């Protein structure tokens, strides 16, 4: 999986503002909590000098941080896969 933009080196992950889950850059919704993720910026937006000085841009991560985040994501995904998930029907039975 490509971790950095081939044009500008920007990190290709998207951190959920709500639960801080690390998502793929293309994801529109957080894989952990379902929150809407910030729309990916266009390349033009990334390259503009105005955008580069804009504090609202997503934080850039260094390679070590990316490795750490990806490792965390793998752990979280493993835990999520192992966790028993309930359906609305299960919940209805549980919360009678």
């Amino acid at each position: 999986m490509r971790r950095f933009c081939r044009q500008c080196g920007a990190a290709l992950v998207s951190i959920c503002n709500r639960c801080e889950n690390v998502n793929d850059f293309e994801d529109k919704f957080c894989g952990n909590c379902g929150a809407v993720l910030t729309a990916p910026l266009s390349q033009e937006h990334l390259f503009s000098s105005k955008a580069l000085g804009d504090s609202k841009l997503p934080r850039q991560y260094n390679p070590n941080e990316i490795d750490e985040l990806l490792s965390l994501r793998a752990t979280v995904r493993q835990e999520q896969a192992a966790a028993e998930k309930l359906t609305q029907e299960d919940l209805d039975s549980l919360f009678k």
Partner: protein
Amino acid sequence: MEGSTLPYSALIIDDSAHMRILLSKLLQRNGFTNVDLAVNGADGLHHFKALNPDVVFLDAIMPEMDGLTALQEIKKLEAQTIVVMTTSLSEKEKVLKFKEAGADYYLLKPFEDKKLVDILQKIVPILDQRAKKV
């Protein structure tokens, strides 16, 4: 239930503006005229103390104070208040924590309008009965 007016109050605690609006409209459509909104657990607790609502719709993952903490505080203040968890969390371990803390109903996001109406149809008779006793 749709079209009738209910004398009950509801508080929606959710950090998503979209969800607050959606739930608020659905509740109003189903007779709840007194609906208050809060943006996180801490804000929700503040509103709860001021309004003492009959029903609380509570998100789980929120900044400042999460849903579980807010639920515990609400139940400490007023154990009888009906709390409906409205969240995307479905892991059994987490769900059981809400159950243990006193959540009365659990609405998994995203939900269909009908599912909310189903829950309201269970809640309203309980509130009606309580109102008769008073």
